Each structure stands twice: as structure tokens, then as C-alpha cells.
């Protein structure tokens, strides 16, 4: 063997050994996926503080979380940890973190989230995940238009009817195209329905159609019939299609828009101070003044080969300093009890954004338990799809409210039956 060939062989052996050793060093390796890049910073920090571990971060779309993840999980594949939007629907795949984490800390910080994340066993003691922040439905109002119309802004505790009346008067006085709009989403409608006393789901996980739901549907249909709301959202598309027209609010074409808290950033960056806008307290129904909670919870899955590391990562994510750091990087509504109690600094956020986030944070404490029950219900998506489909049919006069309400129940019962429950 020549000296050149010998050197090459030695290099090859050395290279292989290094590669093997590197692989061994990262024997503890997990994959985390989320829809925002903020988690990436936490994964990097985690790896710095926990040498010998490797956390692969995957940035995915919200659509992927909703549509691809369930299929991956059903086939025993997918990441070790993921953000999930369907809290209860995927509960059967979640890893119970209780044996690995400080259970008391999780129970104290995420008390309201743990129950809806337990799916079919809401009264169990599983700790299925965490979320330092949350999203919420919310009412955005154009204060400039209110001022121009000389109409006082309805105070906290005002009903949906009072808001509809005020928005109509403002739209008329200012020649604004629309008084009110609401995203075409069963989640948004659920805020209205629960405010009017709709239970939506009973303790056995069965759908409930009651007078509260029918009253909310009646009011909602009336607002479309009398022109308070345009047909372009709920009346223009069918089925489970989600649609929002938030650009109407951004362009000053609507007085009152009921959408989601995530639109705050768009408002802040694209509208800023061009007109005076804000998020108001939840409009009230006959039962409560509630908004629907939502957003992405971080969970680990049973199929992981590194359950302890997954739990360690989620506990790291749930650490107060890390939650604050994430929140500072990307202003959001806090969900953890300590953050809600002590408040969160949003360095660099505009006054409008801070005020709107504070308004949302105030509402977090007032969320009706029914809203959390609905959010964690395994068949919530089936119910939301049924609501959008059937309400749209009422708007186009294919069904009356009684039949539509009956069909909502039937649709969800058939979904439960089809799932083999």
C-alpha cells in the first residue's frame, strides 16, 4: 500500500468514526414543528442548555397542522412535538406528560387548558401539553367612524343587539358600506351562541341544540336579512369553507368586525394610526359575555421514542422566562396563569397593539367554561362545520332555523357514529 493510499484509508476511518460519534452524541434527538418561527429560538436555547440533545425544528403551515398532521398521526408517523389547533380532536395521540414534569406547575399555570386537551376524558388527570399564549375571537371597532357619526361607543357589558344598533347608526351616518361582519367560521359563531346560552356539548360529549343556539342563529340571520351584515361571507360560500374579509375593516369599510386576535398584527403593521381602532370587550348575550379561546397548544405524541426528552422540552417551553421571551419576540395574549396575573411586557409594540392585547387579556378571565368545553370537544370541528354549512343554508332560504338546528345535531351525531363511538 502506498503512503498516499494509506493516508486516504486512515482519513476514511477517522471520518467514519467522527460521524458515528456525532450520531451517538445526538442519540437524544426529537423533531418539533410549529407554525411560527419563535419556537425555533427556544429550540436553539434548549440545545445550548442541554448539551447532547438535538431538537430539529420544522416550520409548517397552519393548513398542514389541520390537514396533514391528523393523517400522519393516524399512520403512526409525524413529529415528536407539534403545535395543534384541534386540542381535543387529536387527544388520543398525546403523550401524558404527568410522569415526567412538575405536575403541580402545569396544573397551576395551564389550569384552563388541560381539561379541553383531554378529549374524551376531560375529568382525567392527564397533562397533555401546554400553551404560553393563546388566540381569541374578538370584536374590532373603528373608533374614528364612531366619532365622525357622533355615536357613543357602547360601554363594556353592551349586548350584541346594542352593538348591532350602534354599528348600523354609525354606518348610516358615515355612509360606510357595512355595519358588521363576522368571519365565516363556526368558532366565531360559537362566541355569539354561547353568549346567548348555547351549551353546544353536554357532559357525555353529545351535541346539544337548545334555545340559546336557535336564538343566536335567529339574530344572526336577521342581521343578514336587514343588511346589518353583508352576504359576502356567510351567504356567499357553502360547506366548511373558512372565509374572512378582514381587509374590509382595514380599509374602513365596516364599523364592527368580529374576527380573531391574530389580525392584530396585520392591523398594527398595515393600518397603524391611519385611523383609530381598537378591540372592545366581548359583546354580551342573554347568558354571558364571552369570547372563544383558541390557538396552538404544544403537545408531544405517544409514538415518540424520546418521551422524557419531549417532556423536558415542553417543560422548558413552559418556563416563565421562556414564555416571556417568546411573548416579547411575538406579542400575544398570555395563557399561563402567572403571565396573566403579573402582565407581560411587549417591548417594541405600538400603543394600539398594547392596548388591544390588554383588552384581550382582560377577556381571558371572563371566558365561559362552556367555551373551553366546546374548544376541547373531540367533535368540535364536526360541529363547527355543521354550523357554517347549515347557517349558510338558512341565509339562502334552503332551510328554516328549526330544520337547520336539527340538522346541526344530526350532522354531529352522524360524525360521532361514523367515528365508531
Amino acid at each position, binding site marked *: 500500500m502506498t503512503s498516499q493510499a494509506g493516508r486516504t484509508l486512515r482519513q476514511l476511518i477517522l471520518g467514519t468514526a467522527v460521524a458515528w460519534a456525532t450520531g451517538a452524541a445526538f442519540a437524544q434527538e426529537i423533531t418539533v414543528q410549529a407554525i411560527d418561527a419563535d419556537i425555533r429560538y427556544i429550540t436553539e436555547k434548549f440545545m445550548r442548555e442541554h448539551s447532547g440533545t438535538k431538537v430539529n425544528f420544522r416550520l409548517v403551515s397552519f393548513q398542514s397542522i389541520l390537514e396533514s398532521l391528523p393523517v400522519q398521526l393516524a399512520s403512526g408517523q409525524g413529529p415528536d412535538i407539534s403545535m395543534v389547533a384541534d386540542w381535543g380532536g387529536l387527544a388520543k395521540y398525546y403523550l401524558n406528560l404527568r410522569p415526567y414534569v412538575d405536575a403541580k406547575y402545569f396544573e397551576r399555570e395551564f389550569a384552563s387548558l388541560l381539561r379541553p386537551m383531554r378529549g374524551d376524558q376531560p375529568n382525567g388527570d392527564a397533562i397533555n401539553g401546554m400553551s404560553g399564549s393563546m388566540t381569541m375571537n374578538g370584536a374590532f371597532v373603528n373608533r374614528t367612524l364612531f366619532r365622525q357619526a357622533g355615536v357613543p361607543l357602547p360601554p363594556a357589558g353592551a349586548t350584541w343587539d346594542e352593538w348591532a344598533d350602534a354599528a348600523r347608526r354609525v354606518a348610516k351616518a358615515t355612509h360606510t358600506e357595512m355595519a358588521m361582519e363576522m368571519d365565516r367560521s363556526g368558532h366565531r359563531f360559537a362566541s355569539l351562541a354561547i353568549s346567548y346560552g348555547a351549551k353546544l356539548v353536554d357532559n357525555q360529549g353529545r351535541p346539544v341544540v337548545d334555545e340559546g343556539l336557535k336564538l343566536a342563529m335567529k339574530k344572526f340571520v336577521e342581521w343578514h336579512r336587514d343588511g346589518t351584515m353583508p352576504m359576502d361571507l356567510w351567504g356567499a360560500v357553502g360547506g*366548511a369553507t373558512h372565509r374572512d374579509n378582514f381587509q374590509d375593516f382595514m380599509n374602513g369599510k365596516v364599523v364592527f368586525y368580529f374576527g380573531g386576535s391574530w389580525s392584530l398584527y396585520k392591523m398594527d403593521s398595515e393600518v397603524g394610526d391611519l385611523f383609530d381602532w381598537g378591540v372592545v370587550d366581548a359583546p354580551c348575550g342573554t347568558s354571558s359575555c364571552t369570547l372563544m379561546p383558541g390557538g396552538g397548544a404544544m403537545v408531544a405524541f405517544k409514538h415518540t421514542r424520546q418521551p422524557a426528552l419531549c417532556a423536558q422540552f415542553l417543560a422548558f417551553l413552559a418556563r416563565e422566562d421562556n414564555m416571556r421571551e417568546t411573548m416579547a419576540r411575538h406579542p400575544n395574549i398570555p395563557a399561563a396563569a402567572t403571565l396573566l396575573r403579573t402582565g407581560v411586557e411587549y417591548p417594541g409594540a405600538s400603543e394600539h397593539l398594547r392596548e388591544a392585547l390588554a383588552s384581550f387579556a382582560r377577556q381571558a378571565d371572563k371566558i365561559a367554561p362552556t367555551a373551553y368545553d366546546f374548544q376541547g370537544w373531540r367533535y368540535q370541528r*364536526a360541529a363547527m362545520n355543521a354550523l357554517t354549512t347549515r347557517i349558510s343554508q338558512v341565509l339562502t332560504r334552503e332551510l328554516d332555523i328549526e330544520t337547520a338546528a336539527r340538522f346541526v345535531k344530526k350532522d354531529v351525531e352522524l360524525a360521532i357514529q361514523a367515528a365508531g363511538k
Partner: protein
Amino acid sequence: MIRNGAQWIGTAAALPARALEPLMAWLQKVLGMSRLPWIFLLPNLLIIALFSLLPVLMNVVYSVTGSDNLYPSERPFVGLSNYATLLECENYLQPSTCSRDLFWRAVGNALVFVPAQVVVMIGVALITALALNRNIRARGFFRGIFFFPVMLSPVVVAMTWVWLLQRDGALNGILGAIGFDRVSWLTDPGRAFKWSIFVTVWAHMGFYMVILLAGLQSIPADIYEAAKMDRASPWRVFTRITLPLLKPVLLVVFILGVIRSVQTFDEIYVLTGGGPGTATKMIVHYIYETGFAVMPRNYGLAAAASLMLGLVLFLFTGLQMKLSKGGRDA
């Protein structure tokens, strides 16, 4: 030099064939000449089996099993209950009395949409083909223009029309500029249905136009010259020469159009989402929502609905084969 290069490539290409000669000779000896073609067909048969037959078979398995589990082994056998659920109805003319009312609304919509869309599409495609078969100026350019939508993604087509037809879209902008009120093109069920027909015709007409154009160009010119000498009117030439000789091609276009129309999904899904209400919901849209968009996913019901749709399309394909054979015999 170039010639030498070409010869070299030809020789190199023939090498594998020559190398296979002993194997072929052996196969011919073992299998005989009658069975040897199956060896050549085997790769294609495997591909068809894997990508066409196996999915159909799996669809059958899903349609007779239940639950929201994905793996067939984890799905309990439910017999024909998915089919029974779909067909369960007190009065088919009143979808609200059906167990799966949305399916029957989709069937009802398809029964109106398919004939209307196919008739309009063939009519427009035929008129366009006749016009572009004449010796007009910039004929190639116009052929390209009419064929252009066929090359676009259905989603792009639908999004374009959404931008044109929405409340603040271009069409309402033009109407507003000339003093008319804005029109709700997509929020009125009747208008949305008509626009769905228009958009799908616009998107696919070019394809059928090209087939008809090819058919028109295959008609011998001397027949037209003879008719001209006999002073036959253009209408008479069209009804007595063009239409009869175009019949086989028209049959193919008709059957292809019907199959495509029954399968309509993407354009309408983006344009109206099946709405307003269920005004433009089609069968494939129902299958998609049932199997993929709504949680929990009802794969069994979606599979049963798609097999029923497949059966209808199979019948149309059979009809096409019979008619096209009839056309050739004629």
C-alpha cells in the same frame, strides 16, 4: 464526423437489445409466441395494477368498513351500511328528508349542472371551431387565445374569476364607473350557479374546440366544393355535410364533456365553496369534504360515494365505447 457520431450512438443503443437476444430467445422457447407479448406488457400491467386497480380495490375496502381510523386493518367491517346511509331517503326530490341530505343536494345540482354545462360547452366549442376553421386573419393567434385557459391551473382560473366577480371586483368596478349599481354575482344562488357554468365552460372549452377543429379539418374539402357547385346554402352545408361527418367526433366530445362535468370540483370549490348555501355543491366536493375536510374524517362514506360516482362514469365510458364503435361502423 457527425455521421460517425450518430452511427456510434445507434450502435451503443443497440447493444442492450443485442445483449437481451439470448434471453428473448429463451423466453420464446419456454413460453411460446402466443404468451411472449405478456412479458412485454408486464411493466405496464404492473403500473396499472399498482396505481389504478389497487386504489380502486382499497376504495372498495374503505367503503365497506367504518370508523375514522386510517389503516384498513383497524377499520371494522360494516358491510353495505355506508351505501345504505347514502341512499336512505324518504323522498329523493326533497333532499332534506334524506339521511345525507347534502349528498342528494349535490346529486340534484349535478343533474342540472351537467346537461347545461355540456350543452353550452359543446355549442360554444363548435361555433368557435367552425369560426377558426375558416380562412380568417390571425387564425393561429385566436386558436392560441381560445386554448390558453386550458393550460391554466383550475385554481388560477377560479381565483381570477373570484377577483372579477367579488363585491369589490373588476366587474362591479366597471359597472360602478358607468353608473350602474353593484351586483351580487356570487351571493345569489341562481347567479352563482350560472357563473359556475360559465367559468367551467371558459376554462375547458378550448380543449373541446381543438378536438372539433381536428374533426372539421379531417372532412374532405372536395365534398364542400361539390356542395358549392350545387349552390347549397351555408346552413344546408352545415346540417347535411359538416354535422353528419362530425358526428363521431361530437360523440367523443360529448362523452368526455359529460365525464369531466360530473367530476367538476376545483374551479367551483375555489369560486363558491359549493355555495351560497349548497347552490353549487357538486358530488366530488361532497366526497372531498366528507373524506378530507371535515373532522372526524368519514373515509368509508366518501369511498362509497366515490364508487357510486365511479359506477356512473363507468356507464358513460361504456356508452362512449359503444357509440364510438357505432360511429365507426356507420
